[in-house]
């Protein structure tokens, strides 16, 4: 009986202590700088949604170094959450991405465009290509003077091993039904006809990319086409070309939004991928590392067209 009482007392004590400590630390007013423990009720919020890393179709999050990626699924969850919270009056997309695959870039840009709240894109080190496409869907783009942005273009490059194979007497036997089925195969030369066909596809994607940017930024397509050479621009250049609206950072965006909302105090809500404590503790486990290596080694598909990836 004595043991039972001790067990109950100690476990309850520890549970209440943990709960109290966790709540106290989580309190938004808990700030190491000013130790302000008196919470001020704030009914206006600004959401910050990250657009970090490569833009990909699926966020499996599996690679050896756990590099961040952005996927439409992840952004959709964040945006749905923002839509359902009336206290969130504005959204800042925190952009630090070199771009990525075309389809997810377009999907995310569309989601951002359809979001019916004040939207700012704040570009950090890089907000280029697909990431710029997404940024252009916002009401305003703020970039650092030295941010890398622009790069409005499409690339689809791959290695051609045919020369290497013929040196070693390796033949590639193409058995296809449909003359262009193995277009883009790295095991054979790209014929001029095939090159023309692939180039046409890229041109279509390029046109759609440029048109979207022109529409989003309220610039003529002709003007955007002149800039859409794939060249990247620094922030100081981009502002002159009309690709960004202002030079600054997240604070600049927050202050502007506060002015717009006519408030002095807002709560910042940062959206991040949910990790629980076991994810954090297991980050460097051998299983995780093994999974990353295996994922890198497993071929995603056997079709030769998988070797051709179109990136914005």
């Amino acid at each position, binding site marked *: 009986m004595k043991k039972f009482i001790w067990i109950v007392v100690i476990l309850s004590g520890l549970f209440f202590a943990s709960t109290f400590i966790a709540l106290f*630390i989580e309190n938004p007013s808990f700030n190491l700088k000013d130790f302000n423990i008196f919470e001020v009720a704030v009914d206006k919020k600004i959401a910050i949604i990250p657009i970090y890393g490569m833009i990909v179709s699926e966020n499996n999050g599996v690679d050896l170094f756990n590099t961040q990626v952005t996927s439409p699924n992840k952004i959709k969850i964040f945006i749905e959450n923002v839509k359902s919270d009336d206290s969130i009056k504005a959204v800042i997309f925190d952009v630090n991405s070199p771009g990525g695959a075309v389809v997810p870039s377009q999907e995310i840009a569309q989601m951002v465009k359809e979001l019916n709240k004040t939207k700012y894109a704040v570009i950090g080190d890089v907000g280029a290509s697909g990431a710029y496409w997404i940024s252009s869907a916002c009401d305003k783009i703020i970039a650092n003077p030295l941010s890398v942005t622009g790069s409005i273009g499409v690339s689809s490059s791959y290695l051609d091993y045919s020369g290497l194979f013929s040196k070693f007497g390796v033949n590639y036997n193409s058995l296809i039904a449909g003359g262009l089925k193995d277009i883009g195969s790295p095991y054979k030369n790209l014929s001029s006809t095939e090159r023309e066909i692939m180039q046409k596809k890229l041109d279509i994607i390029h046109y759609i990319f440029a048109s979207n940017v022109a529409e989003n930024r309220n610039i003529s397509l002709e003007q955007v086409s002149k800039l859409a050479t794939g060249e990247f621009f620094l922030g100081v250049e981009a502002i002159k070309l009309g690709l960004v609206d202002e030079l600054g950072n997240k604070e600049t965006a927050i202050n502007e939004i506060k002015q717009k909302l006519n408030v002095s105090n807002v709560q910042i809500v940062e959206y991040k991928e949910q990790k629980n*404590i076991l994810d954090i503790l297991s980050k460097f486990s051998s299983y995780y590392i093994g999974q990353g290596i295996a994922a890198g080694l497993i071929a995603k598909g056997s079709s030769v067209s998988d070797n051709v990836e179109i990136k914005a």
Partner: protein
Amino acid sequence: MEKIEFVAKDGIAPFWKRVLAFIVDFIIMYIVILYPFEKLFSKFDVNSFVGVYSNKITIALMFILVLNYIYWVAFEWNIGQTPGKILFNLYVAGREKVKFEQILIRNLSKPFVFIFLFDVIYMFFKKENQRFFEKMSNTFVIERIISLKKQNSIGEKL
């Protein structure tokens, strides 16, 4: 007339029982200590160690270490067992009555994963299944086996 006695026999706790007891304790600690911090940790970006949450996470981790330590010390000092040990009839014992300082020393490695690993590896080199910090504190984990002893009225075992 039959006389029935319970006889307790103490022996060094087998390694596998200690492991299972530890797993049970870990599960209980997860529910009682770690779970309340889940919401805070879910906001943490594993790739970023900057920003307001890094300070909060650091403070939270410090408290977790302290609460972890309190779990082991509070149970072993007050009842000589943790909940996991109770399940497997294991006790903390010393050559004499166990003092509070001994309990403090034997559990020093528990909050720190890498130190605890070294502590456990040390056990494989000791016949008494003693961790390094148990050796330092002069304590053991024993198993109490309770058996039934029947005797007739003239003391013959039945």
